[in-house]
């Protein structure tokens, strides 16, 4: 099947983005208006509607920054700052990214190991699943400070506590997805293995693992996004010095709303990039496994 021409793929996205930006502008004007009106009244200034709108869109500490204010901030702090500077979005993104990737790697490994155990050992199947599900019901915002504080008490700071929180959030989708994936082969395929008197190990490597690849990559997309959330949440409790979470925290302390929104945009770009990379990995594996092109 020929993929849809570029114009028909980009146009809908462009249309939606335009609508979002229009709504954003309207919201900015509406939300910043009360403060601006207050300001004008105290300064005894009378502005026309156009002047008023212009002022709401260029406040230094607005309630809702206008899109262009955020864009300028992102541009300045990404391209016009030294990468080692404390105000560079690239530096903060890298700090968050490193703990995201570490947590994601461990989470995926842990999830796969748990899934293999559950599928092959009956006792684990009955006992482990409820605990895993229960583990995810505890709100991460409650656990994160505990983990950071406890580990700081044994002098473990920096990457590891944040990576642990990321691992905690990302192992669950991988475990659940892989259990489903390893159990996905049809009965007829399993019967076939039985007629060859294949060992459990052979059935695992030659049947279960290839059959579970689509499930693995889908779970990994969810896991990598959850891992990023974990890394950011891990930076919040202790007023961390670096990372996107710390930028959010600092922004809220000093009412730097534009900085906060810029950090959010950076986080979103990071998340989109990570999920896209996992998607590309999925497509490469698909091609190697001879999947029929959609």
């Amino acid at each position, binding site marked *: 099947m020929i993929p849809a021409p570029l114009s028909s793929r980009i146009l809908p996205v462009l249309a939606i983005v335009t609508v979002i930006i229009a709504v954003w502008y309207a919201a900015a004007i509406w939300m910043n208006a009360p403060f601006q009106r207050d300001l004008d009244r105290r300064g005894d200034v009378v502005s026309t509607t156009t002047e008023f709108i212009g002022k709401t869109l260029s406040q230094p500490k607005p309630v809702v920054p206008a899109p262009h204010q955020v864009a300028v901030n992102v541009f300045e702090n990404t391209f016009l700052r030294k990468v080692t500077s404390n105000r560079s979005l690239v530096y903060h993104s890298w700090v968050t990214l490193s703990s995201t990737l570490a947590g994601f790697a461990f989470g995926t490994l842990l999830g796969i190991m748990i899934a293999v155990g559950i599928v092959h050992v009956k006792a684990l199947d009955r006992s482990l699943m409820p605990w895993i599900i229960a583990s995810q019901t505890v709100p991460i915002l409650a656990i994160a400070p505990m983990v950071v504080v406890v580990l700081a008490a044994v002098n473990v700071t920096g990457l590891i506590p944040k990576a642990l929180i990321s691992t905690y959030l990302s192992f669950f989708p991988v475990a659940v997805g892989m259990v489903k994936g390893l159990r996905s082969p049809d009965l007829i395929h399993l019967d076939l293995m039985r*007629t060859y*008197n294949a060992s459990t190990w*052979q059935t695992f490597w030659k049947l279960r693992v290839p059959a579970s690849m689509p499930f693995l990559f889908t779970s990994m997309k969810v896991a990598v996004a959850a891992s990023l959330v974990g890394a950011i949440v891990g930076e919040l409790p202790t007023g961390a010095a670096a990372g996107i979470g710390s930028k959010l925290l600092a922004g809220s302390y000093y009412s730097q709303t534009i900085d906060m929104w810029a950090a959010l945009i950076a986080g979103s770009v990071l998340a989109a990039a990570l999920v896209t990379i996992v998607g590309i990995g999925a497509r490469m594996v698909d091609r190697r496994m001879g999947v029929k092109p959609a």
Partner: protein
Amino acid sequence: MNASPASVVSARKLGLTFQTSDGPVHALSDVDLEVEKGDFVSFIGPSGCGKTTFLRVIADLEKNTAGEITVNGMTPEEARKSRCYGYVFQAPALYPWRTIEKNIALPLEIMGYAGTEQQERIRRTLDLVSLAGFGKKYPWQLSGGMQQRASIARALAFDADLLLMDEPFGALDEIVRDHLNAQLLKLWAATQKTICFVTHSIPEAVYLSTRIVVMSPRPGRVTDVIESTLPRERPLEIRETPEFLQIAHRVREGLRAGHSYEE
């Protein structure tokens, strides 16, 4: 058991009862059968008469609850562990992530054949089923008939003297079926294997086999065993001869006697 040494499958008073939530289901009851080496035995009957179940008992995919059965002189479990048979399912059951070559190599990999030996066997079986040149294709690139042929090639790849086929051509159209029937007979003549073949189709059963086992349902049992008088060399035209029709008539009578045609 007084099974002759040439018996590949020997069943005595074989029974299988499934315990379901609705009560016991007698899939097989009191089945006595001998399959000699080199036979082509067809099992024919309506749905639910136990023919697939019987094949699965031979293959140790089900366990009988009564009677006894030996395959190659061993229990079905021992026969399965020594890889005595190749099984062809109703669906091709090819792994979609492997090429046709790699699919045929699957049992060879599991059974530990050397790489060069694998290549040789793959080439030979692809030639046997007329799929030479399609080795590097993926299953989704092949038609239903070709996929089923690949599945048969896979069952022939390793050295098993017994071939168990469960309605392998059931999902294919008449023309492809005729073609594959003729090809299967040629294959049988070339490889000298013993074949147990389950089918729904009376002409197919009469055309292919040296012996036809007519089964009927509720409970699954053998109604008639017909020794075919047709010669081993059979062109497709034989299906219009009076001899053929006589045997088909006998099969139908057997089915009627087993109440297969009643509601």
